[in-house]
């Protein structure tokens, strides 16, 4: 059923008239043109579609649009601040924490939530926190290093 859904997207208010049962992933990608959020499985098993909903890492492939009514959604496109990359984005680049990069938006957004919970994460906390995100290229080690580097860079911020 078509309904009017209002939410904040990357800091700006948006209104979408669409079937509220459609998954947020496709609304972001198709209706709103934000293709940084990726499809990897559509079943909540890979984390490629991770976005932040009220600061919580959320699989947009299994999140009906109506669930974000009145909430704040952040996608990878919204993480940089006035063209200034987020420390996580910089750390992923500097640590070469990606190969094909297809998992990267989901990784970075999940790491964002992780660093909110654990500003100084141990390796074990990173492994547990990132467990839902798959990387087929095997960049895991450098992803852990990047998250640690970002945590350092964000100290006192």
């Amino acid at each position, binding site marked *: 059923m078509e309904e009017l859904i209002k939410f904040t997207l990357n800091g700006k208010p948006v209104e979408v008239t669409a079937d509220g049962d459609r998954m947020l992933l496709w609304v972001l990608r198709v209706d709103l043109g934000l*293709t940084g959020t990726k499809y990897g499985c559509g079943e909540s098993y890979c984390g490629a579609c991770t976005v932040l909903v009220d600061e919580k890492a959320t699989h947009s492939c299994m999140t009906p649009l109506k669930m974000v009514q009145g909430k704040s959604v952040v996608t990878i496109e919204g993480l940089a601040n006035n063209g200034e990359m987020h420390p996580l*984005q910089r750390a992923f*680049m500097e640590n070469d924490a990606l190969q094909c990069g297809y998992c990267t938006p989901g990784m970075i957004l999940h790491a964002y939530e992780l660093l909110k919970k654990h500003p100084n994460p141990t390796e074990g906390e990173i492994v547990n926190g990132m467990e839902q995100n798959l990387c087929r*290229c095997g960049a895991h080690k450098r992803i852990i290093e990047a998250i640690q580097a970002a945590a350092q860079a964000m100290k006192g911020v």
Partner: protein
Amino acid sequence: MSTDSTDLEWENVAGQSPMSSDQSSSGLSRRQFVQILGGGLLISVLPFPALGQQGGGGRGEARGMVVSARVHIAKDGLITVMTGKVEGGQGARAELTQAAAEELGVPASRVQLIMADTGLVPDDGMTAGSRSTPSTVPAIRQGAAAARNLLIAMAGRRWGVEEKAVQMRDGKVTDGTAGHELSYADLAADEGQSKALEQSIPSGVTVTPVKEWKVMGTSVPRPNGRDLVTGVHQYPSDITRPGMLYGKILRAPSYGAKLKAIDLSRAKAMKDVVVVQDGSFVGVAAPALFAAEQALMAIAGTASWEAAEHPSSEKVFDYLREHAQGGVPKNPFADEMAAAGKSLRQTYHVAYVQHAPLEPRVGVAEWQDGKLTVWTGSQNPFGCQQELARALNLSRDRVRVIVPDFGGGFGGKHSPDAHIEAARLAQAAGKPVLVRWTREEEFTWACFRPAAVIDVEASLDAKGALTCWHFVNINSGGSAVDTPYRAGKIKCQFVGSDSPLRQASYRALAATANNFARESFMDELATLAGSDPLAFRMAHLDNARLSAVLDAAAKRFDWAGRRAKKEANTGVGLACGTEKGSYVAACVQIAIREGRIVVQHVCEVFECGAVINPANLLSQIQGCITMGIGPALREEMRFQNGQITNASFWGYGVPRFADLPELDVHALDRPDLPSVGAGETPIIAVAPAIANAVFHATGQRIRQMPVKL
């Protein structure tokens, strides 16, 4: 500036006729190039057979003359290099950019690389078999070096000095005299040079020796890294075209099932839905994915199918053996082995696995004036062009394939699939169509690394030296089937079989299966000989490069120390191997926890000649080890009644963060040796080293991948 080739406007150049005589194989004329890249100097590559000393880059030999541009220098000095190679995460974009920058004498950031757009780039063959480093890097270096030489020659003429006196620095040349300075922009603006367009790269143009490398040999980062971490980069999945429809394809309910009948009327009655049937190909397209799914569902229920026999994964190894082409070869050394003091025979099984790249297959197709443009994530853009031309009955020059940097391939993305499906639907719809495979489609209808049945038998003399060695790989392939170990008599064979699943290349091909069997068997032989696994291997190795990596890995890992310090439920194992001219050795430590294998530590040493990009090499080796842990511990396709029964990331366990061992990776740099690829061989030592460590921990021999306790 984005280096993404999809930024270029094909519309500007489509439909121009007649083509001028300097038309490239891609159907693009000199004039069209100028429209896209601006005026300037274009340097073409020689026909492929003359390229490089290493046998050429691609299949140009078979195709005849391929002459098109390699390096373009615009009047503002912007340098564009063109290659048919693709980027799927393996780092070719950085490596090929730095190859060009090195020879041009400019920083890597000055070079824009256009990859894998059949309308713009030369055919460098498919991106597979670790050929980019040994073939395409030299080809690009020659093209770039030719451009540099033109600049030097022009300077020599202008200033009336010998070319020897002209120095190259930061993209400029000078002879030391004040005011004597010329850049690539000057070269492109030079009337004489611009008239001599389509300069051919002279064969044998000299390239910079390794000891003078400034850009190569350094860790040049991924040129589009920023676009990747900010979500700006457009993967094939992210391409949209005006008025684009979403396509869905009818899939058979089981492998080999034949479509007997289907009623399309319900889908045809739906608003804005396009339905196509061509024999067993049935597809629908609609303005929204959901509508296409509904339409497909409406007709799928009306289809009747004739099922076919299909073996189950439980029986597949027997099936492959029974269907070995020409039968399973007999041991030619049976008599000698029977007479030998000690002999051993074992069989190893390797399950089917899948590449499962995180980005599933996708194709976007658009027709305009009888010409077809397709965006897809393929390792074989020119192959796709040919497949599309054949499937749609077009001449090749009416098909353009663009491969934006895509989300992983690992050897599996070069089969005809989503791009042809999209093209067929787009043709019928008269509108652009996107076909994106679901993960389930990917797990079912993409391709698989072949399963293997491997028989190995060998005999030892009284001193524990190998006397006979007989090795037979059934079904999975001949890569690294030959043993690097000395033996009195050796026979290594591969025989094909009748694979029930659609097979394709996978990172390192059959080298993983063959090395798994060989290195596991070598461990068993070491025990039979009463030797240490390291000493036993070393005693049979004549290859200095292989011994060097094995020795280095054992030292870094403290093989002797760790082996002696064995604790309950832990074990160490090692393996080594060589494939495609590179060498690898791995030592691992594992623990058994609650009946499960935990890989705790992997020390791997790898050597692939002169290192071109240390950071990318590290990423490739780490990636191979991590990826290799999957098929070693868990990954296997399960199937029954012609259906995959674990077609999801839930049922098919790829490596996760929790699987990551401590990694100690070391690359041996050999500047004295030619560079070869690094994206494959580092995977082949992982599984056997783990299996051998399980034996050390438990006393149980492991003879199948994935390892089962």
